[in-house]
């Protein structure tokens, strides 16, 4: 069973914070008295996906603090999940670390979350680092109304059928290999060894096999009123130094955001770096390079 991975280091400290009655699991790398950097993971990930990236910043003298989003990793499963609640959970973690402005990193969904948090609470953010977390309108295909109606009917029925079966729902068990293989379908650019490692820290071993810890009520896709441009429109508001890093290689979990879409929204204190031959998980594919860019920004 792989419990290690080259360069990976488990957090130095773990604790929980209360967010409206839910226990949010917080993970920290580095000295407790060091200047903090807060980091939000992406959807369907967990803080342990920073196990290679976080130690690079911790070893550079920072207290790297991340947390499992509600329903993810070791955080408590909620009855309901929405964007506003995720933001409140983040604020509860911030409150447990510092009330000063601190550097903030967000990957994917975490990038969009931290962008909104920086817009809502600018006094809490000194630098904003967005790792492939800038969805844009152009990255979503346009379809005809007729097609949209048919697709939506399928999504709606599937989603409601799913909601009817949630009581006592469990994720499908499997071996470490099987869970790694399933995750690999959405993370095809990540190595099998890394995916196996993630199973050992992001899943639990039950009598009938391993299960990802993420709330079984959560699922990909679906529908809702949210528009990708609603996230991007917050970027010009940001008044602190911004570093946006996009991977250009196609990736199932990626947004496919074009360089021009970001440049047109980048604030004056913003920098965009496009990484060729890198997918959505820029900090996992190029941890040293991304960590160095972060260190350069916050120096």
């Amino acid at each position, binding site marked *: 069973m792989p419990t290690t991975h080259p360069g990976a280091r488990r957090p130095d400290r773990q604790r929980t914070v209360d967010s*409206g009655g839910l226990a949010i699991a917080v993970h920290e790398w580095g000295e407790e008295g060091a200047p903090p950097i807060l980091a939000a993971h992406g959807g369907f990930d967990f803080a342990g996906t920073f196990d290679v990236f976080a130690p690079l910043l911790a070893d550079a003298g920072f207290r790297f603090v991340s947390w499992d989003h509600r329903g993810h990793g070791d955080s408590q499963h909620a009855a*309901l999940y929405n964007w*506003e609640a995720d933001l409140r959970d983040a604020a*509860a973690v911030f409150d447990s670390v510092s009330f000063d402005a601190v550097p903030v990193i967000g990957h994917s969904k975490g990038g969009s979350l931290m962008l909104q*948090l920086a817009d809502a609470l600018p006094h809490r953010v000194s630098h904003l680092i967005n790792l492939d977390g800038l969805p844009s309108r152009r990255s979503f295909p346009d379809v005809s109304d007729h097609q*949209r109606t048919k697709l939506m*009917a399928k999504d709606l029925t599937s989603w*409601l059928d799913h*909601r*009817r079966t949630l009581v006592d729902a469990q994720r499908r068990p499997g071996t470490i290999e099987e869970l790694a293989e399933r995750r690999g379908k959405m993370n095809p650019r990540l190595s099998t060894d890394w995916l196996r490692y993630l199973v050992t820290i992001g899943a639990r071993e039950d009598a009938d096999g391993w299960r990802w810890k993420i709330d079984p009520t959560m699922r990909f896709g679906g529908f809702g009123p949210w528009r990708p441009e609603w996230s991007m429109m917050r970027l010009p508001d940001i008044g602190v130094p911004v570093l946006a890093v996009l991977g250009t290689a196609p990736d199932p979990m990626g947004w496919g955001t074009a360089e021009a879409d970001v440049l047109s929204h980048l604030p004056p204190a913003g920098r965009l770096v496009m990484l060729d031959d890198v997918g959505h998980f820029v900090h996992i594919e190029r941890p040293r390079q991304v960590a160095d860019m972060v260190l350069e920004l916050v120096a």
Partner: protein
Amino acid sequence: MTAVLLQHNKVQLALHELRAGTARPLLLLHGLAERTPGAVPAHLVAWPGPVWGLDLSGHGASSVAIGAGYFCEALMGDVDIAIAHLGPVTLFGRGLGAYVGLLAAGGRAEQVRGAILTDGPGLAGGGPSPSSPAVPTHLGPPPPGGTPDPWALYELTRDVRPPDYAATFARQASTRSGLDTAIAAVGVNRPPWLEGVIAEPGVIECSLPEALALFAAAP
């Protein structure tokens, strides 16, 4: 009034029987911070069949979502849990319940035999596009009994309701229900989402008695 308790994930829902009967039920969906009334309201007495009311998550005798995270599509799921218990229904939604009723009419178009949308608390929601972001971490304490959940009041007055998004649910209801008229708007106020719905085929504006008669006669 008797109540049936149903489970929607971690939330327990209270479904109240206001009037017994064997025909297709009228299912009442209350407004924001309201709850199912204790008896059939006078303006709905004309409905010829049984009348039920659902307390939405975080409201009335239903339980709250710990840590909250309310959104209207989840409340559509509440209604669907009630439909799984009752079978085909006609919906009567006030305010928030009108919007949720629209979603349910589109989401379970074959099971919703008409939806009547009218005025009430929470009709407009957060408007057609996002407002300035805010991240409050604490609200006032919940009232005795726990409902209405203060987080429900906060979150369900900020949820964005684009007119074109709402219209897609009206389109689902019209195209999949088989009804000539699937939705009736009987209230006075017309927030942007409802304007978008009214512009769709299969949606009419009429009086409440007309809507009740129309859907009572629907197959």
